C-alpha cells in the first residue's frame, strides 16, 4: 500500500486553492493513497526503450486552422455571468502582494 504524507495533501490543496480541515485531509490522504495504489500497477511494466506516448492517435497531427478572426465581441454576455464586473473588467479579490 502506497502512502502519501499529510504534508503532501496540504501542498496539493494549496496548489489547487482548496481549503480542508485536518479531518478532511486525513480522509483524502487515504483516498489519494488508494488511487495511487490502483494505478501503481503501471509501474510494473518494463518501458525500457519505449518512447513516451502523449496521445493514443499517435500517427495523427493536431488539426490547425487558418489565421482568421472569426469571433465577435460578446463582452456584455460574458461579464454578466461573472460574479463581479465593472468598467468592462472582471473584478476579483486583490491578487498583488
Amino acid at each position, binding site marked *: 500500500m502506497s502512502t502519501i504524507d499529510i504534508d503532501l495533501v496540504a501542498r496539493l490543496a494549496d496548489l489547487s486553492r482548496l481549503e480542508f480541515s485536518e479531518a478532511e485531509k486525513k480522509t483524502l490522504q487515504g483516498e489519494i493513497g488508494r488511487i495511487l495504489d490502483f494505478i501503481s500497477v503501471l509501474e510494473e511494466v518494463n518501458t525500457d526503450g519505449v518512447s513516451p506516448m*502523449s496521445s493514443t492517435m499517435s500517427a495523427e497531427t493536431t*488539426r490547425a*486552422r487558418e*489565421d482568421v*478572426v472569426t*469571433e465577435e465581441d460578446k463582452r456584455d454576455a460574458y461579464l454578466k455571468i461573472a460574479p463581479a464586473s465593472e468598467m*468592462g473588467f*472582471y473584478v*476579483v*479579490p486583490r491578487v498583488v502582494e
Partner: protein
Amino acid sequence: MLRQDYELVVGLEVHAQVSTQSKLFSGSSTAFGAEPNTQTCPIDLGMPGVLPVLNDKVVEAAVRTGLALNAHINKTSVFARKNYFYPDLPKGYQISQYDLPIVEHGRMTVDLEDGSSKEIGITRIHIEEDAGKSVHDIGDEKVSHVDLNRAGVPLMEIVSEPDIRTAEEAGAYVKKLRAILRFLEVCDGNMEQGSMRCDANVSVRKRGETKFGTRTEIKNLNSIRNIVRAIEYEAERQVEAIENGEKIYQETRLWDAGKNITRSMRGKENAHDYRYFPDPDLLPLRLKEDDIEAWKKTLPELPDQLKDRFMRDYSLNNYDAAVLSGSRESARFFEAALEGGRDPKLVANWIMVELFGALNKSGKDITESPVSPAQLGQLVGLIEKNTISGKIAKTVFEEMLQSSADPEEIVKAKGLVQITDTGAIEKAIDDIMAANADQVADFRSGNERVYGWFVGQVMKATQGKANPAMLNDLLRKKLQG
C-alpha cells in the same frame, strides 16, 4: 563594474508575441489597445466543452524563427498544460510546450562594441499562449481588475543557454534577436507594448569556478536599457551578498526601474510546481518535411547575411556593419544614401554618428527621419567634391534636420561653398600674418602652439569656408617662410 575576481553568468528567456490576426487556439482578435475584454471567446475564457484549435501561422512563425537561429526543428512536438491558479488565467492552466518543444539547439552571433563577436546558444523555442492582464490601480483597493484580451495570444518563448557573461552581451543578444524577429516579420518587437518581454536568469561565481552559482530570475524587463541595468545591479547585489557571507536564494525578483533595484517577490516558492502534463485536447504537432523546406525558402536576407554583405561590398568594419544591418530600415537607408557612388565609410559615419545622434535626441525612428537617404547622400557628395568641408557639413546637416531642405539649397542660400581658390586663402593668410607680426615671430622661434591660433584666425576670416587641407598646406608653407 563587476569585481575582477567574479564572473557573471546570464541566460535569457524572451517572450515574443507572434504577429497574427487571431489567437493561438481561437478566432478572437489579437489587435493591440482594444477596450478590455472585447476580444475574447469561450475558448479564451475556459468555458466547459470547448476545444482549442491551433493557429497554423504560429507554427510557421516558430519554424522559420528556428531556421533563422540555425536550430533543430522537431518534427514532432507536444503541447502541455502548465498548471497554476491566477485570476488572469481562466482555464487554470496555460497551454505551452514542455519536454518536446518545436525548436531546439540553435545559436546566434552577437556583435559587441569593441568589434568582437560572440556566439550564444539557443536552448529551445516553444509555442505557448499568453495570460490576461490584472490591473491593480483602479477602483477599490481591495480588488483587482482583469482584462482577458491578451489571454490566448500566441507567444514564442525563446530560451538562451547560460552563455552570456556581461550585461552588454545581454543587451546585444536581445537587440539581435529582435532584429531577426523583425526581419522575419514574425514579431513586431515592440517592448513597450509588451509584444516582446524578457526575463533574465542571473548568477555569479568566482572566476575559475566551473559550477554555476545559485541564480535568481529577474522579471519585468521592458526595455533593452532596463535589461542591461537590471543585470548590472543584480550581479553587484549577489557579489556583495556572497562577500558578506550571505546565501543567495533561488527566487524571482522584480526590476524596479524607478528605484534602479531588483526586489524579491515573496511567497512564490509554490508557484514553481506547475505539474506539466500533455494536453489531452491537442494531438502532437507533426511537421512535414515539405512544409519545413517550403518555409526555409521564405527566409529573407537576415541581419548576419546583410552584415557580411556590407563588410564584403562596402568594406565596413564588423561593428559598423552590425549596427547598420540591425534593422531593415537602417540598412535600406544606408544603401539608398550610397546611390551615386558615395564613399560607404563616410556615409556610414554620417548615419551612425550624426543622424542616429539627432534621431535619438528627438526620440524619432529612422523611418521618421527629417533627412531623406538621398539628401544625406547629397551632403556626403558635397564633402567628397570639396564643395564644403566636413565642419561646414555639420552646420548644413543641422539645417537639414530643421527644414528638411536639400543640402545644395542650404549651401547656396547661406553662401557656405568652401573656398578652394588658393588665391583667396593665401590672401587671408597674408592679411593675418601682416597684422600679427609678433605671433609670426613667436612661431618661427619654435612655438608650435601658435599654429592652431593661426588656423583659427584664417577660418574666422573666411567664415569657416576655407578648405581645411588647403589652408593647412598654405599656412605652414607661409609661416615657415
